[in-house]
């Protein structure tokens, strides 16, 4: 994966101006790190926060999309005559109309098609869009459109798609050229001489993001200028895509995304809907609201590709890993070749291992395209790697924590030049986590004779991103009354970005949180920011915020120094006053600094500098799970969970813990319940395109007993030392549960999710566990 893929930006990333002054890392903090309640908590829970889907404008029309009901079809004819006569209809757009033939690329790396491409490559490809006075009228009109399809042979599984006789999803074949295999050392030689060699095939589910707020926007034209209120992780990414599609100057596209109800990677960029809404608004001269339905979201708005991962591992008797070899197969759907992206990263990187080979094979199928999904590829890779580590531990008769501690990597083995990690808390996460969890005792606790079996498991993980980096530009304004304004382009996608941003300003300038206002995620009023994704918002923005506040402080100190006739270095900001460090009697209240009063406002600008050269910056995590397995019904209940995380400095303990809890819950979905079901054998349609058939975990699936252990090694790679946590929080969860299930019932499940059916099947096929897997060893 290239950095651009993580940042969702065309071409080379914009550079930020070099920082003018960089503050030193904090040695102690008064506000940063504290478990502060979200600054917008009241607005979010009371309903006064205006999410994009809440935006109502005068004369606003409502739009609905007609999508192809077939897995593979060619549109022969679209008859909108009846639909155009239904009540309230103001505009209908179909392929071939003036202005509607907009080029489109399925994902940034996808191949060229167009907005209403008549070649429908999956159930959900868009055929027409309607704007009407009400959403009900829009839906009625959609139903009244008559489409003649030429239904084509379809292929919805990778295995079928790779056959030479398979129906062609696209011109140029279903099988994109596989990237060259990753390789270091000599795996074949290592497998020949190793003491222990194991091979397993693991499979993972196709997961749907299902954010609570659906995908869509409200758009409004003012002459040549377009404003888009979009539920997005990145307003600048939306601006770029909309401007490119509609051939508009960037300056004429203002995208606002103050709140958003979940994205998980699926909203890093926009979709066809924003373009359709803009075209409809142009045609009708009225604002248009277009949010897709839950079913459309399940079919068309991205997924985590299902993967089949064959993993072979070899170790010495003492547990030293000597070789890892993986082959990953997956599909990014009809438009994206990214069916295996990110899967092998943990295999290459997490453990010290001299001989590693990773191959990947993707294929196009007639199914909805993938989109980045919280740590793309990593939960799949961890599912395989961490299942394998557990199997190796059993085979070697070693404790799974000890085996992992035996193979800690101190350098980034798959990056050029093998740079050392700025910090790696992986070993500490294992040790501290095991201690707090009571691992050794829990592991040895005798099994109850009843049919409900108990077990504990561990799994580790790391995230490829999480370092952050340029570009980021942040402005902090200090007003004459000592209140402040924080202006940044980044979206707060639910992780608490606004809150810890304000905490940093408060830390640096001593302004109370309730006197800090925040402007963010608006291309019209804030500076360029990459989308909030890749667990990089905190590591990217926090040093820039720190620098901006520091810039204000420097200016203020300069003014106070002049007035007090003291050197600036002798001054510090304390409780709304600038005070001499050496003679605290010498001080001046902010309001009494005359130069500041004359200026009325101080503006500080902070830029995000580069990360130190020759260092790899990554967050690490280790999860511990305790489960109960009902061997009669196949039910798996996660009863206790502990997550140990090295994400550098914690900016806000409360939102940090909540992100980890959310990651655990999502990982429980991966491990136990979630799976997009397609009717592969018949019509190739999605059968689970709703919240009942697609089994998101519920509150009753997540344990109440959850603990977060923070490992902070005082990383100074940036002035805040914060690494990302959003994605690492969900990477090791599912394999930790699987390993606990294996400990409970003595049989390893290699297919996720571990549904009741699979647990019962595994138990039925159970052979007596080898001695080494028995308890107490």
């Amino acid at each position, binding site marked *: 994966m290239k950095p651009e893929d993580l940042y969702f930006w065309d071409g080379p990333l914009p550079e930020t101006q070099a920082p003018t002054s960089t503050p030193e890392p904090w040695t102690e903090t008064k506000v940063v790190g504290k478990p502060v309640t979200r600054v917008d908590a009241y607005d979010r829970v009371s309903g006064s926060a205006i999410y994009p889907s809440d935006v109502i404008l005068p004369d606003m029309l409502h739009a609905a999309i007609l999508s192809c009901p077939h897995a593979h079809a060619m549109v022969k004819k679209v008859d909108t005559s009846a639909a155009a006569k239904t009540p309230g209809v103001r505009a209908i757009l179909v392929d071939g109309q003036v202005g509607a033939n907009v080029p489109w690329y399925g994902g940034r790396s996808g191949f060229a098609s167009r907005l209403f491409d008549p070649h429908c490559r999956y159930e959900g490809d868009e055929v027409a869009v309607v704007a009407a006075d009400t959403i*009900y009228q829009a839906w009625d009109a959609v139903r009244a459109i008559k489409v003649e399809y030429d239904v084509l042979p379809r292929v919805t599984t990778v295995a079928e798609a790779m056959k030479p006789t398979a129906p062609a999803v696209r011109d140029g074949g279903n099988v994109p050229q596989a990237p060259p295999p990753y390789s270091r050392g000599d795996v074949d030689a290592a497998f020949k001489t190793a003491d222990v060699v194991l091979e397993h095939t693991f499979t993972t589910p196709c997961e749907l993001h299902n954010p609570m707020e659906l995908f869509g926007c409200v758009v409004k034209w003012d002459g040549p200028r377009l404003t888009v209120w979009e539920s997005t992780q990145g307003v600048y990414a939306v601006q770029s895509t909309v401007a490119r599609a509609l051939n508009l100057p960037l300056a004429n596209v203002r995208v606002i995304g103050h709140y958003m109800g979940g994205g998980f990677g699926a909203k890093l960029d926009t979709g066809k809907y924003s373009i359709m809404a803009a075209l409809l608004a142009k045609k009708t001269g009225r604002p248009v609201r277009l949010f897709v339905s839950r079913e459309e979201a399940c079919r068309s708005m991205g997924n985590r590709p299902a993967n089949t991962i064959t993993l072979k591992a070899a170790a010495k008797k003492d547990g030293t890993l000597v070789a890892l070899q993986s082959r990953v197969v997956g599909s990014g759907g009809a438009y994206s070749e990214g069916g295996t992206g990110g899967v092998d990263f943990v295999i290459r990187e997490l453990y010290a291992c001299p001989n590693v080979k990773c191959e990947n094979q993707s294929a196009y199928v007639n199914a909805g395209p993938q989109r980045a999904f919280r740590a793309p590829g990593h939960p799949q890779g961890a599912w395989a790697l961490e299942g394998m580590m557990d199997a190796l531990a059993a085979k070697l008769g070693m404790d799974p924590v000890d085996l992992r501690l035996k193979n800690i990597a101190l350098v980034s083995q798959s990056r050029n030049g093998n740079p050392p990690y700025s910090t790696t808390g992986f070993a500490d996460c294992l040790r501290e986590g095991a201690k707090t969890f009571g691992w050794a005792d829990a592991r040895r606790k005798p099994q109850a004779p009843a*049919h409900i079996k108990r077990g504990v498991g561990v799994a580790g993980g790391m995230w490829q991103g999480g370092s952050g980096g340029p570009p980021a530009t942040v402005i902090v304004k200090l007003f004459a009354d000592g209140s402040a304004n924080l202006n940044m382009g980044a979206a707060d996608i639910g992780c608490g970005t606004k809150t810890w941003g304000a905490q940093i300003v408060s830390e640096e300038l001593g302004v109370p949180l309730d006197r800090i206002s925040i402007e963010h995620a608006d291309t019209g009023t804030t500076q360029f920011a990459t989308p909030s994704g890749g667990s990089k918002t905190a590591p990217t923005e926090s040093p820039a915020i720190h620098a901006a506040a520091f810039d204000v402080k420097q200016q203020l100190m300069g003014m106070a120094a002049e007035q007090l006739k003291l050197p600036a270095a002798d001054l510090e900001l304390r409780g709304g006053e600038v005070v001499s460090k050496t003679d605290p009697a010498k001080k001046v209240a902010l309001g009494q600094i005359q130069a500041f009063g004359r200026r009325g406002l101080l503006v500080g600008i902070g830029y995000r500098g580069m990360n130190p050269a020759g260092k790899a910056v990554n967050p690490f995590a280790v999860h511990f799970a305790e489960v109960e397995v009902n061997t009669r019904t*196949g039910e798996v209940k996660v009863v206790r969970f502990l997550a140990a995380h090295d994400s550098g400095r914690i900016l806000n303990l409360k939102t940090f813990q909540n992100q980890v809890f959310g990651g655990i819950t999502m990982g429980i979905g991966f491990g136990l319940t979630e799976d997009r079901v397609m009717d592969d054998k018949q*019509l190739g349609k999605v059968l689970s395109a709703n919240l009942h058939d697609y089994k998101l*975990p519920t509150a*009753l*699936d997540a344990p109440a007993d959850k603990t977060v252990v923070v490992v902070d090694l005082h990383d100074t790679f940036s002035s805040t030392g914060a690494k990302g946590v959003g994605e690492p929080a969900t990477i090791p969860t599912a394999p930790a549960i699987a390993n606990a299930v294996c400990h409970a019932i003595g049989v390893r499940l290699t297919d996720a999710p571990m549904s009741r059916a699979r647990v*019962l099947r595994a138990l039925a096929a159970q052979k007596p566990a080898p001695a080494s897997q028995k308890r107490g060893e």
Partner: protein
Amino acid sequence: MLQTFAYVRAGSLNDAVKQLDGPGARVHAGGTDLLGCLRDDVMSAEKVVSISRLDDLRGITPAADGGLRIGALTTIADLAAHPGIAEKYAALAQAAAVVASPQLRNQGTIGGNLCQRPRCWYFRGDYHCTRKGGDMCYAIGGENQYHAIFGGGACWIVHPSDTAPALVALDAKLRLISAKGARMVPAEKFFVLPDENAQKENVLAPGELVTEILLPPMPAGMKSAYRKVRARGSWDFAMAGMALTLTMKADKVADARIVLSGVAPIPWRLQAVEKLIIGQKLDAKLMTKAADLAVVGAKPLEQNAYKVAMVRGIVAEGLEKLL
């Protein structure tokens, strides 16, 4: 979005019955299933008759014979929280408590829960299947992990209700009314197998509705329970479940009724198992025998054989727990 239909709010039961007497009329109680079905084009409606004003159909009251009368409009939440039900008819209270989600239990009614349409994804989806008047059950050759292992044939749906098996086990009766008059039907006789009629799940005639449920007085010493296994912890239908009543006399089973959910197009009564244990001492050996007998005759499809093991497990666990 929905098809066009007339909407009527009935002022009295007589009015409701009159309004429903005609083609294309549908009863609207809680609406949690009806509106979804209309939105998804699972069925059509020319007229939707709301019975929400019929307060007589709401509430739980003692019946003359010492049993209980439950109005069909009683919400599932009220049923789950009623102390009299919890005390004497635990299976029903437990079944109600595990229906769907809190929001749906607050809105959904017991009458609606019995009359809801099946959740088969082919029936609910864009497939013209047997149950919708087509000539094919897509579950047979398709994705059938949640489908029936008993009573299939022309169609392999499972009945989605949790309260239905509890009511069958508790030997409840349903009062039905239509323009032609009222009738009482035992809960057990209310449901219809696909081989009898693959397009309806119960005996309700067009224009007929359930008005109340009568629970008989419970014999002293009778215990009951409902157990549900679902794919996730809440907001889900049964993959398999069991309503069980058990009356012990000394150390022997005097009476028992065992009814499964989630495995057949109707609540699936296990009379052979009941016969096996009645009059017997319920020891570990007999429980194993009972669990084995419970799945005799199961005809799993390609992906749902796990339900055989699951039913065996639920029966064994249920008998052990209730004893």
